[in-house]
């Protein structure tokens, strides 16, 4: 009888927790098995966790009311909070008003007073911690997570296709598998893939931030750590470590790897343009007449230089820079010999 009484109190407690003002309405609605009552209580307790921030701001009378409700909730599950007694050892001080309220409530009830007081205080402490965590934004609000998820519903046509894909392994007269069965399975797969991608595209950037993952920001730490010049001791240490860790190669493969690292062995497949970083286009190699501006426009020197340019344009082994240097050397040479050329 007492348990039934307590359950009735629980329903009132549940109603009080969810809406502190309108209490009596829900009592009539919640009619059913005690198991349902229990489940309702658990659900309401969860609700209490999420709305704790709002409730925290209420006055002492309301907090007393919550204490009453919590105690009544505890009474129904007397066996459960045995493990909570450990929590009473935590050093966080509770609101003295709450403590007074707890003791008052415990004195009013017929059960073991000390036990109820300790349990109540433990519950209060836990709720305080959860509110602090929520204030910092640490706990995951499951409601938010679940609200974004949608149940993927298969169209009956697709389901029929899938089943048909599984069952229909029809054999030809020869005994080979038919093509359409495979293709239907593939098409079903493609469809599911499309559906999955559609879901992903739709739901990646939409919705509230869940704050499940913390941003791993390690770059600024590394950026701040650069020293201007390494000390000799650092170099020595590094060399020592390298000498110790560099084990002799165990087989031919490791030997070849080591040689490749040192530069003794080329990298395969052989790249013919290793070390040659000629970024110039072909027209810079061939059309070299623009470098001939320092030379006289007529005469044997011009003729000579045009031959030089013709030869350079056909040369694939020199870089553009080398070709330009070649022409400039000639220019310098002929300028030095200008007096001589004037005599002729």
């Amino acid at each position, binding site marked *: 009888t007492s348990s039934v009484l307590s359950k009735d109190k629980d329903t009132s407690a549940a109603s009080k927790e969810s809406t502190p003002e309108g209490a009596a309405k829900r009592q009539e609605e919640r009619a059913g098995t005690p198991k349902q009552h229990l489940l309702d209580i658990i659900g309401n307790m969860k609700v209490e966790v999420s709305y704790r921030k709002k409730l925290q701001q209420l006055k002492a009378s309301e907090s007393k009311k919550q204490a009453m409700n919590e105690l009544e909730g505890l009474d129904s599950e007397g066996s459960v909070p045995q493990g909570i007694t450990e929590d009473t050892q935590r050093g966080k001080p509770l609101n003295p008003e709450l403590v007074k309220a707890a003791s008052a409530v415990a004195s009013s009830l017929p059960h073991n007073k000390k036990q109820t007081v300790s349990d109540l205080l433990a519950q209060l402490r836990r709720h305080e911690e959860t509110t602090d965590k929520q204030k910092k934004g640490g706990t995951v609000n499951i409601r938010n997570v679940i609200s974004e998820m949608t149940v993927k519903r298969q169209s009956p046509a697709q389901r029929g296709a899938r089943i048909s894909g599984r069952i229909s392994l029809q054999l030809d007269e020869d005994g080979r598998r038919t093509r359409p069965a495979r293709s239907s399975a593939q098409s079903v797969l493609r469809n599911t893939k499309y559906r999955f991608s559609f879901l992903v595209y739709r739901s990646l950037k939409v919705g509230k931030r869940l704050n499940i993952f913390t941003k791993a920001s390690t770059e600024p730490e*590394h950026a701040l*750590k650069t020293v201007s010049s*390494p000390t000799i001791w*650092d*170099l020595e*240490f*590094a*060399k020592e*470590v*390298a*000498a110790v860790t560099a084990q002799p190669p165990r087989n031919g493969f490791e030997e070849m790897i080591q040689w490749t690292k*040192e530069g003794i062995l080329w990298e395969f497949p052989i790249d013919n343009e290793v070390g040659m970083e000629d970024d110039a286009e072909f027209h810079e190699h061939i059309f070299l007449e623009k470098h001939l501006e320092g030379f006289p426009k007529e005469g*044997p*020197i011009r*003729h*000579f230089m045009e*031959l*030089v340019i013709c030869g350079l344009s056909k040369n694939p082994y020199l870089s553009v820079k080398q070709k330009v240097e*070649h022409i400039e*050397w*000639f220019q310098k*040479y002929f300028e030095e*010999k200008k007096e*001589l*050329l004037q*005599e*002729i």
Partner: protein
Amino acid sequence: MAAAALCWALRAARQVLPSPCPRQVRSYYVDWRMLRDVKRRKMAYEHADERLRINAIRKNSILPKELQEVADKEIAALPRDSCPTRIRNRCVLTSRPRGVKRRWRLSRIVFRHFADHAQMSGVQRSMW
């Protein structure tokens, strides 16, 4: 963290000092003639471009002959060891000036020695 710092220090060390390679490094040439040949090769490499260009002026039928004579004198004024014709392809191991096969840079005696001990890749005693 420590590993990253180590790697960075190692990279810096590599840039500053050459990494210690464990195999043998030749610190002496076989004889003085080989050393002189090495010097000639270096000089020839340095003056190769100039020699090419001055020779291009010299071996010319377009430019006036006076210019070519001047170029002759200029090329003669270059150091004697910069001429590539003074390089002699000696044996790399024994510094023998004669009987050197170009492909292996070895004199015939050394080549035969290694080939008989099967230390020359792809070289076999011929018989037909």
